[in-house]
Every structure is written in C-alpha cells, then in structure tokens.
C-alpha cells in the first residue's frame, strides 16, 4: 500500500498487471490524450485471448473488428515496451492460464487485469482482482489503483469429496449456497482440507469463480503445492532471489487468531456433481436434484420466473435427461490440463453423441502440448472429438464459437447469463466430467453412472 486516504480508498501498488485486447485499447487512448506514458512497462504483460479464433490461427483474423482490436493490442504494447503475446506467439493463451504457467503469478503479489476472473491468481496466495478500463489506465500510468478496503470472509470446506466431484463442483456448490451476490464486498479465503488437498489447477478453478458470488477476489494460503508449481517457471525468481522469495511465501498465511467478518463451513462429503439450471451462477444444484420452486429461492419470484422462462425450464423438473446441443470445455475456469484429463478419462472408449457439437478449447499452448504429449489427443480423436486452439472461445462468444439461439450448452465456463454464449443461448454450467457425460450421451447425465473409476 502506497498511501491510505482518510475516509477514502487506499492507494495500492500493483506488482503484476495483465492486459488483453478488449479492455485495454481505451486505456491506451487515455494515456495518449493525457500525454503520459507507461510508468513500469516491465510490470505489464499482454496476451490476446477474448477475441481470437480457435481454429486456423495461422490465417488472418476474418472479422475486421476483432482483427483491429488484436492489432491495437500489438501496436500499443510495442509502442510502450510491454511484452506482447499475440495470436500465433508460443506463449499466447488465456490471460489467467498463461499468467501462472509462466510464473508471472507469484504468491503475495498484487495482480490486476481488466477482467473479473483475475481472482484466479488468488490460488497462489496473491492479491488478485478484476478492474475496469479506467483502472487499467491508472496502472499503466502510475502502477497504482485506488481501492476501498474489502471485508474478509473465510470459507472452510472439510471432508472427503465424493466420486466424480471436482473443484468446479465445490465452487458451484459454494456459490449456490451464497447466491450470486453473497460475497459482494468481500475478499474470500478458502481454507480446509478440501483445498489443502487440491492441485493448483483445482485451486485456480475455485478462486476463479469467486467473482460469481460477488467476491472481488478469493485466495488460498500458499503451501508446498504452490511452491512446487511456482518454482523454476520463466518469470519466477531464480537463485538468491528465489531463496528470498521462498522465505517470504512461507509467511503468507492468516494468523491463527485472524478474525473474519464472516466465516462459513461446509461438509465436502455432501457435495455432488453440480449443474446450473438458471441464468446466474448461483442458480446451481446437485445434478440429481429437481429445479427448486420459486418459494424456496431467495430473491424475487418475478426474476426467478424470468430466468426459468429464458432457459425453457419449469419448477420441479429433473435436470438429468435434458437434451444437450453443445458442450464446451475450456475457459479460464476449466481450460487447464487437469480438466482435459478428467474429460478424457470419462469419454475413453466411448463415442461422441451424434447430435452434439463439442468444442474442446485448451487455455494455452502449454495445455495443448500436454494434451498431445500425454496421449489424451489420441483417445479424444478415437472417441470422435476435435481439439481446437487456445482462447476464451465460447465462454463469452466474442469470436465465432457461438451457441445458437434456443440451443442448450453444457459448459465448463463461468457464466450462464442470458446470451452469454451467443444471443439466445442457454447455458448449464458444470464440471469437465459432467460435460464429458453430456458429450457422449447428448443429455444431462450424472457422470457417476458412466464409469467406475473416476479421476
């Protein structure tokens, strides 16, 4: 913290700033109109992801508006001396996937990006959150932003997760309990053995979804799992600097007597594979449950009814057995290697259902390479699936990966808002395993019924 303003926000120094093509161009225009430069260009990293095609990336981008935005990111980055990982660059990929992969994400660092899912990086014990374009401009110009101090919440999940229950299910469960606004105004720390036993990929999935219950950020205290992941990555500290960093990382945990404004505890063994049935991520439930009645849901009945009408669902219906037209595996939520391992483990030896379109989109080139090197691609190909190229893709459908109006998608992404995956699209959020079960059956299917040994 650089400075605290009495009765106002704090001035926070930002260690690492990530930018992408959609929320940065107007910030650069702002710098130009003010006649100021970028204060610390080596603290900002640019990657193109929101607007990129996921096939034929070697060809020119067909949509002139998208091409223009990608070009603007490149031009601005070059002009101000910012590392730019554009389309075709080996390090290009989803900002919240490549940041950790290359060691830009460090425990204890303050990290911001003009993207609400910046909360992902909290998985490393970083203070990471999404910002608007005005703030992107602030960080470029001064490496600082001005933020009011958030309240603190701790969410404990203990116990052994059941068969087929993934980090995504844990997150969707928590959000379903808190609602889509239940953590607004808070920074959340996730604690308990469920998170302690989770891989970094899983922790990133959980922290990524913090924003979906309104939390600005989520974090998990760094431990050996974190340190093993961070060590040796390209932008991680090396040599003496690493020893110093390591000592610092080990100090990054809440005091034993830390007091939280709110503390919640859940039993992990009670969580089942989750699916959403409505138009915000809080409208989720165990896949075997029935869609709740408005009377049992917090909030206004009119809003609830509007949501179900949009989805074409009714109160009391089963989700299992509902028709699925599209399946999307990818995004900053579930576009990492573990997600593709899980998907592949279920579809192995089975075949893609004929009437389902399946988009498998890795979060980065590293993930793409891992899928190939681990032999997953062969299994996927055998089962009738095609692997696309890295990008945000159908998560927000800024590129051509759009779900048509009225069609149903089971998606491993983060938002089921109206039209999120294309105008009129209907999204059911779920884990890679639930996505896999839908991909081979063409219906909402409980993955636990499909295979004995799940990852």
């Amino acid at each position, binding site marked *: 913290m650089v*400075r*605290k*303003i009495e*009765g*106002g*926000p704090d001035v926070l*120094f930002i260690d690492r700033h990530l930018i992408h093509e*959609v*929320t940065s*161009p*107007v910030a650069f*225009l702002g710098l130009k109109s*003010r006649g100021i430069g970028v204060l610390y260009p080596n*603290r900002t990293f640019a990657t193109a992801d929101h607007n990129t095609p996921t096939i034929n990336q070697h060809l020119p981008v067909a949509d002139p508006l998208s091409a*223009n*935005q990608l070009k*603007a990111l490149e031009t601005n980055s070059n002009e101000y001396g910012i590392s730019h990982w554009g389309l075709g660059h080996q390090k290009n990929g989803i900002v919240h996937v490549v940041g950790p992969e290359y060691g830009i994400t460090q425990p*204890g660092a*303050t990290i911001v990006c*003009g*993207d609400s899912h910046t909360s992902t990086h909290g998985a490393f014990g970083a*203070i990471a959150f*999404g*910002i*608007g*374009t*005005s*703030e992107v401009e602030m960080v470029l*110009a*001064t490496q*600082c*932003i*001005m933020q*009011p101090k958030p309240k603190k919440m701790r969410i404990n999940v203990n116990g052994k997760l059941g068969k087929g229950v993934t980090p995504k299910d844990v997150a969707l469960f928590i959000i379903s309990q808190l609602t*889509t*606004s239940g953590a*607004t*105004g808070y920074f959340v*720390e996730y604690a308990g053995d469920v998170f302690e036993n989770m891989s970094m990929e899983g922790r990133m999935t959980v922290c990524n979804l913090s*924003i979906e219950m*309104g939390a*600005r950020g989520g*974090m998990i205290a760094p431990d050996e799992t974190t340190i093993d992941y961070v060590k040796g990555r390209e932008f991680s500290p090396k040599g003496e600097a690493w020893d110093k*960093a390591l000592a610092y990382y080990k100090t*990054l*945990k*809440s005091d034993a007597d*830390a007091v939280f404004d709110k503390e919640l505890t859940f039993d992990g063994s009670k969580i089942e594979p989750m699916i959403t049935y409505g138009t*915000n991520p809080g409208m989720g439930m165990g896949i075997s449950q029935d869609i709740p009645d408005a009377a049992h849901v917090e*909030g*206004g009945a009119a*809003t609830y009814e*509007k949501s179900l009408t949009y989805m074409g669902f009714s109160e009391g219906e089963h989700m299992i057995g509902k028709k699925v037209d599209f399946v999307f595996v990818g995004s900053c939520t579930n576009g990492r290697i573990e997600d593709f391992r899980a998907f592949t483990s279920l579809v192995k030896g089975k075949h893609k259902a004929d009437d389902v379109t399946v988009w498998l989109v890795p979060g980065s080139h590293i993930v793409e390479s891992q899928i190939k090197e681990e032999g997953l691609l062969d299994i996927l190909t055998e089962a009738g699936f095609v692997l696309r190229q890295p990008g945000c893709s159908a998560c*927000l459908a*800024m590129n051509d990966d759009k779900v048509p109006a009225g069609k149903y998608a089971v998606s491993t992404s983060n*938002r089921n808002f*109206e039209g*999120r995956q294309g*105008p*009129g699209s209907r999204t059911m959020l779920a884990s890679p395993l639930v996505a896999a079960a839908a991909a081979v059956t063409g219906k909402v299917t409980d993955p636990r019924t499909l295979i004995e040994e799940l990852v």
Partner: protein
Amino acid sequence: MVSSLKMLTHHSTTHNSPFTTHIKNMAYDKFNILKSTAVPLPIENVDTDQIIPARFLKATERVGFGDNLFRDWRYNPDNTPKTDFVLNNPTYSGKILVGGKNFGSGSSREHAAWAIYDYGFRAVVSSFFADIFRNNCLNIGVLPVQVSPEFAEKIFTAIHADPKTELEINLPAQTITLLSTGEKETFDISPYKKDNMINGFDDIDYLQSIKGEIEEFAANLPL
C-alpha cells in the same frame, strides 16, 4: 488474511481540493444536484452481459456504446425494438436508472458503465450494487446511489403510479428524495470519490500528483 501490503510514511501535500492539486482533464461532467424523472428496471441480478453484450465490446474507442445498452432486452434479433422493454416505452424517461438488487454483477467490462453514461443516464439507483460495476461507475462519472430495499420499493411504486415522478439526487448532501412525497434517504460515498465527482476529477489526476511517492515505494520492491 494473506497480505504483502506495506505502508509508506504519509507525505504531507498541499491541496486546493481536499485531495488533489493537479490541473484536471475533465474526464466527465461534474455532478452536483440531479433532478430528473427515472427509468425503472425492477429486475434483480442485472449482469453486465445484459447491459452490454460481449459482441459489442470490439471497439477500440469509447464511442457508440449507448446504442447497444441492454441490446438483447431492447431489440429483437432482426433489430426491431422490443416494445415491452422499458427503454422502448416513451412513458419512461430521465437521467436516472433505477435497477433491482445486485445491479451490475458479472464481467468487469467498463463498457457497461460507458453504455449507461453514453445513453444519457447520470445516476443508477439500486438497493445493492456489484463491486466492480460500482467502482467503474464512480470512475467515469455515473453516480451509483445505494438505497434501502424499502426505499427502492417506494421509488418503483411511485414511478409505477406516476411516470412523471421526479427524484432529486443531491451529491453534496448525499441525499436522494422522492419529490412526489418528500421522502428522503441518505446514501454513502467516500469523501474522496464525492470530491472527484463534484469537481469532475479522476483517480489518475490524484495518482499523478503523488508520483514521486509511488516511485520511491517501487524502488524498494522486487519485480
């Protein structure tokens, strides 16, 4: 809670306004007292994907976003207006948008706040705002006014009964008044942000004014 944040010695500075010394860029119109009719949107959890869908985020300049405000609620796929949406109902107009609980959730896209400003709204009233959206509004000159759920309900009822009902938002006094009945509520805003909005300042003006302090701070940090 995990924290790496350190505190610097507070440097004393001289200010014209309580907070800033610099010449201003006038990023947006100053906000003082706003008296206007209001447009009611009593839907909860209005997310920023509804306020401005992603496919309209491809611009590299801040122009034309108001045309696509609430695009998919406002227009049919063939671009004809949806007559049942409030922005297409000539009965309702004004510079104040009154939304349901948890307004502005989801994506951090500042384009949502730009679209609201560009369309002509200067204030959004709700019983609850999403954090990033609220911050974005404050940064671009749209005043988020958080009222109690009861007062929000009174506003909706009053506008429903008489669409010409006016609201008065007095930023210096931090009050919102339903002029038809005189009912009034106070709202919160930090003294710093209030000063910014009244004067048309923004955070970069302030941060530029303490640049020396920032550089001194950065000199002691690893990358």
